[in-house]
């Protein structure tokens, strides 16, 4: 899921400096699971802002604010309140913020920082596992991603900064992705995959440029 953390409250206040009436939108999916934009956090945020003298004209947790259809349907009955507000405070990931801006046509302030696509170990403990690079190579690497988990994105084995299976970036606190990959492939009896030299990646197809997936549009016009 998309891992988010709440921005420092002072930063939220600074962005809302000239705004009196605030409408809050939370997220029923990832941000709820991260405890950053669910029912409880929306309520807490409303209370904190009220203490600072802001007026909360309305609040809602949209099931999936990143889905334009659900966002517009869920907020339709609240459009009067939304229009009355000076700004929307979005407790969603960056995709949610932009979906809100595009469809609700209102100044929208991000209340969260979007960190990464990650795995949840428990609340407050998340690990980045996918960079959404656009061309999955997990088969070749035993299901461990060097794009997301190696700071240099090495493709052919560990660099000189590995010691005791740990990575020098972050002072040997994290595992070296390539030692994990090596051990996994060895366990699977698939070391040939390690020995194969990987070609340089084709960044004209990867996520450096903005991308759109349009296959549904193409097959169901």
């Amino acid at each position, binding site marked *: 899921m998309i891992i988010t953390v709440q921005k420092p409250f002072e930063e939220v206040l600074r962005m809302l400096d000239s705004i009196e009436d605030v409408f809050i939108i939370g997220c029923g999916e990832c941000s709820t699971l991260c405890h950053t934009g669910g029912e409880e956090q929306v309520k807490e945020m409303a209370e904190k802002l009220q203490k600072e003298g802001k007026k909360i004209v309305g609040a809602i947790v949209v099931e999936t604010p990143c889905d334009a259809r659900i966002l517009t349907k869920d907020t339709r009955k609240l459009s009067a309140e939304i229009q009355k507000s000076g700004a929307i405070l979005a407790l969603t990931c960056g995709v949610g913020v932009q979906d809100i801006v595009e469809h609700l046509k209102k100044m929208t302030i991000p209340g969260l920082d979007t960190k990464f696509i990650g795995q949840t170990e428990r609340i407050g403990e998340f690990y980045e596992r996918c960079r959404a690079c656009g061309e999955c190579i997990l088969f070749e690497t035993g299901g461990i991603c060097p794009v997301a988990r190696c700071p240099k994105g090495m493709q*052919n084995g560990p660099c*000189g*900064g590995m010691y*005791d*299976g740990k990575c*020098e970036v972050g002072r040997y606190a994290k595992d070296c992705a390539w*030692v994990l990959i090596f051990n996994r492939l060895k366990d699977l009896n698939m070391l040939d995959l390690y020995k194969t030299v990987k070609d*340089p990646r084709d960044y004209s197809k990867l996520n450096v440029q903005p991308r759109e997936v349009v296959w549904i549009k193409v097959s169901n016009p």
Partner: protein
Amino acid sequence: MSQNVFSNLMSQLKDRKFTFTGELEPEKTTNLAEVIETANKLKRHVVACNVTDNPQSFGYVSSLAASYIVQREAGMETIYQLTCRDRNRIALFSDLLGAAALGIRNVLALTGDHTTLGDTPQAKPVFDLDSVQLIRMIRQMVDKGMDLNGKQIHDPPRFHVGGGVNPNARPLEPEIFKLEKKIANGSEFFQTQVVFEIETTRKFFKEAKKFNIPILVGIFPLKSYGVAEYFDKTVPGVHVPRHLLEALSKAKEIQEKEKRKAKCSEINLEYFTDFIKEIKKTTPAAGCHIMSVGYEEIVPPLVEAAK
């Protein structure tokens, strides 16, 4: 290994002569007088010198410019270090053509230390290619006269390409497999990470000797107790033997500067002469790469003594 010989380094390695290379580290300056002076001191004692490329991600004067100037001014053959950290494949390719045009004949292809470890940690790390892919690209430029996409180079470069390898790696197995990959992709020689212990060196060669490729063992004479302690404490996997540390620690107590320096040199000469002789005797190493930045005066007597 390719059939052609373009450099003195490769000529010596092909003759299977025990080979010494040195190291030059250009710094944050436009004045290369000091580097040229060091190169002059090392001349006749080492066959070629590495010129480091922003080592440990500290921003210094370009290794390409320094390599060229050292060759021109000091007549010292250089091993141009090139890392993937700061350049995408277009810039790497372009710098390599420039290096060949300037008469550089040896390249050491490295991934490079991570940006966050250096003096400009805010920089965007590039790492478009890794060292294995860079080695392969250089091979293709030299052997086929082509860029990565198969486009022809007019008047292709003539380089010998080398790689790095770390005998201290733990686990060692993935490192050995990676060494094999670099060889399979055309690396013609290797220089290792710093090693202080003969046992580590032997263990490494037990695995590496099957490849029958020239490997120069990285050694680092210790100018002072401070340098030794720094290595021992901060470079993981690199252990300075106890008795060497203790000897240098004792030397530190000598009040008179000249006497202290002399004692340190004596300790270094004794330790590293034995070490190099052991390497010669008990491993198939092709030579030693002496990293003596700031302590170049040790190189002539050491090379002489280890003969």
